[in-house]
């Protein structure tokens, strides 16, 4: 009699895999409303999560792109020769904290100054009052103060103009944005997972009797679980794709109506995040959350009998 314990195939053959996939697809179609509700929930949750991520990414880019725009202006004393200026440039270029050095001779600075101010005021001056200068960019914005102090200590240097205070403010804002972003992303990811867990758990709850029947028929846990997990993955992926559509539609609208008026911010924002990165990230996230929460939801009922 004990021979009857092993009825049917125990290993996964191709037709069994086909059966499991077919089960998942048929269930998705025939549980139409529940499927739509779950996909809709996943889409909204991931759209909020993805939208938040996109805004953070842009803010971080913006914060990182600002400091280099605040260069250090170094004005030389009048008696410094051009040869000495060239030597100084080489010295600056060797400095470990300095990224770029540009020499701005007084002849070049004067027309720019005249152009920036009103011609009438500068026209009255009989000579070029500007000194030769350097425009220096540091590698790490947080080293601005140290580099400025070193430059001031040089005997050839008359004056140094930096934007240390502005740079410090921007750097601290960037740090806050980064940590708030990481904290917010983690919290939102947890909230998103809980919402999706509830949506998919409802679809499993509605079919808990099916699970008991399958168990009494002699279906193995893997056979019962697999279609549910596949359904969860499909729901997660479809929801992610709808979320991508929502995010791109909203970001298009925002850049059309808002960003155009804020040319300054837009020009600082750098290139937008590539479309495929968002698409891929949300698809993987949707599939992973869908698969994991279905597994957890079914497990509860698999243990029941």
């Amino acid at each position, binding site marked *: *009699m004990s021979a*009857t314990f092993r009825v*049917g195939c125990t290993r996964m053959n191709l037709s069994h895999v086909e059966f499991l996939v077919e089960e998942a697809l048929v269930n998705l179609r025939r549980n139409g409303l529940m499927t739509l509700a779950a996909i809709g929930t996943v889409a909204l949750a991931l759209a909020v999560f993805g939208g938040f991520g996109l805004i953070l990414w842009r803010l971080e880019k913006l914060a990182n792109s600002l400091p280099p725009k605040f260069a250090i202006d170094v004005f030389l004393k009048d008696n410094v020769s051009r040869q000495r200026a060239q030597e100084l440039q080489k010295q600056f270029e060797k400095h470990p904290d300095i990224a770029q050095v540009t020499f701005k001779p007084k002849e070049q600075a004067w027309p720019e100054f005249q152009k920036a101010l009103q011609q009438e005021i500068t026209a009255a001056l009989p000579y070029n009052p500007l000194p030769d200068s350097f425009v220096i960019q540091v590698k790490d914005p947080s080293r601005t103060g140290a580099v400025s102090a070193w430059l001031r200590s040089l005997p050839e240097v008359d004056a140094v103009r930096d934007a240390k205070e502005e740079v410090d403010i921007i750097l601290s804002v960037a740090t806050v944005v980064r940590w708030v972003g990481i904290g917010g992303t983690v919290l939102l990811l947890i909230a998103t997972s809980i919402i999706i867990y509830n949506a998919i758990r409802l679809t499993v709850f509605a079919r808990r*009797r099916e699970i008991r*029947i399958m*168990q*009494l028929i*002699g279906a*193995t846990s893997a056979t019962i679980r697999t279609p549910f997990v596949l359904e969860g993955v499909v729901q997660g992926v479809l929801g992610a794709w709808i979320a991508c559509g929502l995010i791109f539609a909203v970001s298009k609208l925002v850049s059309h109506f808002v960003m155009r008026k804020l040319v300054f911010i837009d020009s600082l924002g750098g290139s937008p995040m590539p479309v495929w990165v968002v698409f891929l990230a949300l698809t993987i996230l949707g599939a992973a959350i869908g698969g994991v929460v279905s597994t957890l939801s079914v497990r509860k009922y698999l243990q029941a009998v």
Partner: protein
Amino acid sequence: MIEIQEASVTYPNGVHALRNINLRVEKGEFVFLVGATGAGKSTLLKLITREVLPSDGKVIVAGRNVAELPPHEVPYYRRMMGVVFQDFGLLPNKTVWENVAFALRVLGLPRKEIRKRTANAIDLVGLLRRCDSFPAQLSGGEAQRVAIARAIANDPPLLLADEPTGNLDPDTSWDIMQLLSHINIRGTTVLVASHDKYVIDRMRKRVVMLDRGTIVSDVPCGVYTHEP
């Protein structure tokens, strides 16, 4: 086929569903389990399907101690029995054909074999013309026939039915019982939990009566004599 020795079941809420049950069912027998609601009929069937484990005693089916089965063996153990419920237990999103074929597909049988066995089982219960109907489109009697077809599709040596006629009118109940009797004659051991006096009295099969968790009588060719 089935041997229950001194088995007791106490649920976590403290209810003693079964106390010191001793029951032996031979291969090919037809047995009615009778008794009032709460007498322990369903729990006794669940001991056999291993949905419930005995708190005490032993349940031996086909030579194996059911309580000692490792969890991964349980699905294979259950394939040797068909189960029929009072509320039919059909999968609502599957047609008649799919419901019956499902029991065979989970076993991983080849498609050709599944088609042959599904057709045979549905033919046996006389519902070939309703193959494409969904459970909601069937009458109670038809739904129970589909459930029986599913239970026997795999040709299991044991068939368990929990109040299979509980939702049916007397004529349909009699038809269903005739069907179970027919399956029994083909060699399947059949256990039916029921309190359908009309049907039990006419069948003249072995009747095991339960009362508050204990067996109070066990009569071959018996009748339903329960008195509250």
